[in-house]
């Protein structure tokens, strides 16, 4: 994948990286013309996904890119790791499900906040979460 100015990729290894990812993702959204509320939603979604990477996979990447066509504009947020994977992807999308002692709102919350959401996971291979927010 080639990196253009409409794409960011941030490796998540420490809690400082979470801040970098959400700041850069927010700037990408700003350039695309999102309003303040959507920008907060985008930054929050990145924050939750990045924290999941740290919690469950120890490290991974946040990749964001923009879709800018005549019919629609949007931002894609992807969190990818090569961690242990998720056995039951249905369970992690239920509110209150947590194996970390957290609130269990991360993934279901991100799904609620964003317009499109997909999770692909293979045990022992890793997990990729992809979410899209469209400019309205």
């Amino acid at each position: 994948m080639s990196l253009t100015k409409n794409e960011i990729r941030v490796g998540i290894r420490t809690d400082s990286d979470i801040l970098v990812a959400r700041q850069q993702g927010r700037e990408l959204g700003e350039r695309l013309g999102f309003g303040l509320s959507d920008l907060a939603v985008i930054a929050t979604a990145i924050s939750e996904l990045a924290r999941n990477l740290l919690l469950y996979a120890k490290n991974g990447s946040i990749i964001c890119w923009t879709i800018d066509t005549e019919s629609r504009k949007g931002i894609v947020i992807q969190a990818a790791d090569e961690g242990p994977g998720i056995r039951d992807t249905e369970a992690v999308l239920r509110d209150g499900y947590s194996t970390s002692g957290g609130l269990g709102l991360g993934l279901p919350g991100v799904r609620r906040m964003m317009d499109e959401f997909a999770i692909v996971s293979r045990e022992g291979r890793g997990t990729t979460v992809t979410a899209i927010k469209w400019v309205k």
Partner: protein
Amino acid sequence: MFVPILKQGPYLIASVQSALRDADLIELRDALTQQVGTYRSRGVIVDVTALDVLDSFACRTLSEIANMIRLRGAETVIVGIQPEVAFSMVQLGLKLEGVATALDLEEGLEYMNHRMKRIGHVPNEK
């Protein structure tokens, strides 16, 4: 990122200046819990006006701050949650239940003074 904690009369005011790492939030929590004893403070005001994100970790830590401060015998109010931050918190499902909030620092001080009167502690003007 260092969060300055100001002592104002019987209260401690923590003004968050910019985005915080998880470790900074934990540090703030522990500093407030400690200083409420050092200064024998009656209330803690945490001003989050500068924050553009309050995610699940931040909310959990703010709840912990309020609970720990209550166990130390003082009160907490969170002030300055911006409209778009409130919007994304609600979308995510975060309610900060059981934690007092106020519009801004002025309202937060008003809230504290009111609470102090109710529990019979007249705030020192100094």
